[in-house]
C-alpha cells in the first residue's frame, strides 16, 4: 500500500485551472520528483497537500488519513515536513535557534514560560546542523545567510521532528550547480538512512535524474507523464513540453 495517495485534485484561480485532475501515489522511502515548466501547478499542488490551499475537489491520504481540511500545523504533527520555494525562516533568530524552534514545538514546549528558549534542545539542533554541514554557522543571524544556506537551514528545520514525509518545493533553487547536486545527494542519503519519503520539485534536470526514484511531469495543471527517470526522459510528449517551452533538460531553471 502506498504511503501518500493523491486522488483527483483540482484547483482553479478564477478561470485558470492551476491543477487539473492530478492523481499520484508515493511509496514509503520513495524519492518522487514533480517536475514541469513554470506555472505548471507544482507549488499549488504542494500547498494543497500541506493545508495551505483548499482544493476545489480531490483527496489526499497519508497513511489512510485524509489531509484535506486539516491545518498545516496539524499535518506537520502527523510527521510531514515542508520547505518552501521562497524560503520561510526566522530572520531575527540565529541559525541554531531556527532549528530549536521546530524542536520546541515538537516537544510541545511552545507555551512554556519558565525556561530560556536559547537553551532548549540546543544539542539536538546542533546535531541536525551538523548533518547538513552548517554547524560552523550555528550562531550567525539567519538574515545574513547566503540563499543556498537558507535552503539548507530550511531542510534542517523540516527534519527536526523526524518526519515520515518531506515536501520540498525547489530545494536547490538559487544555488550554484555544483552545490545543488551536493545538497540533493545529501538529502537523498539522509532520507534513505531514515526511511523518509520525499516529494520534491526541481528545475535542474541533472539533480532530478540523479536522485529521483520516480518522476511525475506536470504541464498546465495536468499530469503529462509518470514513470522511471529513463521512461520520462524518453517520453516524446515530455521532450516536447520542455523543448517547446524553452527550458532544456539540464538547463538552468533558477528563478526563485
Amino acid at each position: 500500500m502506498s504511503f501518500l495517495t493523491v486522488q483527483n485534485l483540482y484547483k482553479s484561480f478564477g478561470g485558470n485551472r492551476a491543477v487539473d485532475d492530478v492523481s499520484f501515489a508515493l511509496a514509503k522511502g520513495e524519492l518522487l520528483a514533480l517536475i514541469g515548466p513554470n506555472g505548471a501547478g507544482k507549488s499549488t499542488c504542494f500547498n494543497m497537500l500541506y493545508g495551505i490551499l483548499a482544493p476545489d475537489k480531490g483527496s489526499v491520504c497519508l497513511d489512510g488519513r485524509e489531509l484535506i481540511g486539516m491545518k498545516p500545523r496539524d499535518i506537520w504533527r502527523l510527521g510531514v515536513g515542508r520547505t518552501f520555494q521562497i524560503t520561510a525562516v526566522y530572520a531575527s533568530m540565529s541559525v541554531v535557534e531556527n532549528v530549536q524552534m521546530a524542536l520546541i514545538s515538537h516537544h510541545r514546549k511552545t507555551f512554556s514560560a519558565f525556561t530560556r528558549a536559547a537553551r532548549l534542545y540546543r544539542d539536538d539542533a546542533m546535531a541536525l546542523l551538523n548533518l547538513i554541514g552548517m554547524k560552523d554557522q550555528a550562531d550567525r543571524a539567519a538574515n545574513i545567510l547566503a540563499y543556498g544556506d537558507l535552503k539548507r537551514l530550511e531542510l534542517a528545520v523540516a527534519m527536526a521532528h523526524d518526519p515520515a514525509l518531506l515536501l520540498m518545493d525547489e530545494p536547490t533553487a538559487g544555488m550554484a550547480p555544483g552545490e545543488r547536486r551536493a545538497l540533493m545527494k545529501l538529502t537523498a542519503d539522509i532520507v534513505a538512512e531514515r526511511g523518509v519519503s520525499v516529494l520534491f520539485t526541481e528545475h535542474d534536470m541533472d539533480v532530478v535524474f540523479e536522485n529521483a526514484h520516480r518522476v511525475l511531469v506536470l504541464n498546465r495543471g495536468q499530469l503529462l507523464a509518470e514513470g522511471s527517470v529513463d521512461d520520462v526522459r524518453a517520453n516524446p510528449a515530455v521532450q516536447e513540453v520542455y523543448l517547446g517551452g524553452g527550458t532544456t533538460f539540464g538547463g538552468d531553471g533558477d528563478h526563485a
Partner: protein
Amino acid sequence: MAFYFAQLLTGMANASALFLVASGLSIIFGVTRVVNFSHGSLYMLGAYIAYSSMTVLPGIIGFWASILVAGLAVGLIGMIIEVCVLKPIYKAPELFQLVATFGVILVIQDMALLIWGPEDLFGQRAPGFEGVVEIFGERVPSYDLVLIVLAVVVLIGLWYLFTKTRVGILVRAATQDREMVSALGVNQSVLFSGVFFLGAFLAGIGGAAQLPKGSANLLMDFGILAPIFVVVVTGGMGSIWGAFVAAMLISVLQVYGIRFLPNSTLVLMFIVMAVVLVIRPWGLFGKPEAAGDHGSQGPPPKPFRQLDPSGRIIVAVIIAALTLVPLSGVNFLSVLFADIIIFCLFAASLHYILGVGGLVSFGHAAFYGGGAYVAALFVQYAGTPMELALMLAPLGAGFAALIIGWFCVRLTGVYFAMLTLACAQVLWSIVFQWDEVTGGDDGMLSIWPSAWASEPGVYYYLVLVLGVGGVLVLRAMAHTPFGYALRGTRDSALRTEAIGMNVKLIQWMAFVFAGAMAGLAGGLFVFAKGSVFPTEMEIATSFDALIMVFLGGVQSLTGPIAGASVFTLLQDWLSRFEYWRLLLGLLIIFIAILLPGGLAGAVDQVKALLGRAPKDEAAP
C-alpha cells in the same frame, strides 16, 4: 411608520460626514498603503476653515462656496503633509508612517488652538435650509436632506471618477497592482500627492458640511477617528462602496439604537463591526490582498540577546540609583520617578506585542486605563484593600484583552491597528458615558494606597518593586519559548504554522499577557495619583505609549525603557510651554524621518561611528 422613516433620514444624514471622511481615508490607503491617522484632524480643519470663510469673510463668498473653499484648502494641507512628512518615509515600516501622522495630529491640534482659540465656534445655517420639512407628518430638518444628497452625489462622483475617467482607472490599477503603475508610465510621486489631495478634500468637505449641525471644536479630530475606523474596517479597506454602506448601516442603527440603549452609541457600533468581522474578516467589501505589508520592510531585525555582563552592571546601578530617590527627601522627585517607572512598565507591555510580536496595537491604553478603573471600582464599591486591588487590576485588564484580542488577532497589519483602536475607544466610551458608576468625565477620586504605603516615599518603593519587577518579567518572557514563538509569528507566520505552532493562539495569548501587564501599570498609577479619569484610556494615551516604544526603538528590548524615560521627562518639561503639543508633534515627525532606529538605533550608530560596532550582530 412615518416616525421610523424620519429616523432613517436622520441616520442617513449622520452618515454623510462619516462617509466623506471614511472614503477619503480609504482612498488614501488603497493607493499609498498609508493609514492617515491625521484624517480626523483634516476633518476638523475643514470645519474651522469653513467657519472662517463664512464669518470672517462675510458676503464675499457665501455658505456653499465656503464649503468648497474649505475642501480645497484642506486638500492642499493634505498634500503638504504628504510631501513633507510621508514622502521621506514611504520605504520605512508602516509603523513609522502611523506615528508620523500622529505627530501631525498634535501639530494641527495646537495650530487650531493658536488660530481659532479654545471655544466652540458655531457656523451659520445653510441659507434656504434653516427650517424643517414635514415628511409623512414627521418634522425633519431640511439640511439633513442636503447632507444625504451630498453623500449620494459624492458617491456617484467617486464612482464616475474611478470607473469612467482615465486618471481614475489608473488609480484603481495602482490599488490592485503597484508595480503596474510605473509600467504604465505614471509618475508615482504625483499620483500619491494627488490621492492625498483628494482624500483630504473629502475630509475637509465632510467637516465643513456638518458645521450647521454642530460646531467647529478641538475635540473633532479624535472624536471622529474611532467612528471612521469602524466604518472603514467594517466596509473593507480601500472600498468606497464599503465605506458608504458601512457608514449608512452604522449611523442608521445608531439612531434606532439610541432609543433603546441611549448611553451606548459607540458600543452598538462596535457590535456591528464585531458581527461583520466574525463573518467577513476583511470587511463587507474588502479583499485580503488589500492589507498592508505587515511592517516587513526596512532592515531585518537582529536577534535578541541576554544582557552581557557590562549591561547587567548598568542595570544593577540604575536600579540601585532608583532606590535612593526617596532618600533625597524631595517628594516631587519620588512622584516624578514613580511616574517614569509606571510608564516604563506600560511601554514595555506594549513593546511585547509590538516589538516582539510585530502587532501594532493602537489601543493599548484600554488595558492601562482598564486596569486603573478595575482597581478604582473595586476600592470604591467593594472596599477592596490596595494590595488586592493591585492584583485585580492586571486580572481585569487581562480579561478585557482576552475578549478584545479574540477579535483583533484575526486581522493583521493596519487592520489590526485600527481594530484595536476602535475597541479601546469602545471601552473608553463605556467609562465616559456610564456616569453613575464611573463618574464619567469627572473620574473617580480618593483612591488612596493602604495606610502603610501612604507616604509618597513608601509608595514609591512599591512602584519600584512591582514596576521594575514587571519590566523584568516582560523581558524574561521575550526569552522564553513563548517569546520566541511570538517573534516567530512576526518573522514568518507561514513557517510558524509549518512547524506545528498555532499563530493566532500565540498572538492572542501575547495580547492577553501584554494587556495584563499594562493593567498592572494602570493599577499602580491609580494609587499614585489617588484618582483616575477617562483620559487614561483615550486614544492620546495609547499614542503616548506607542511613541515611547517608537522613540526608544522597536527592535530593542531596552528601547521602550529608554523611550518611556525620555518621553516622560520630555513631556514634563515641554508641558510648561503653552503649545507643547506642537513641539512634541514636530519632534515626533522629526524622529520618524531622521532616527528610524529610535534611541537604541542612534546609540548603535554613534558606536559604529566611533568604531565600536557591536560585534555579535545582536540587539541588546
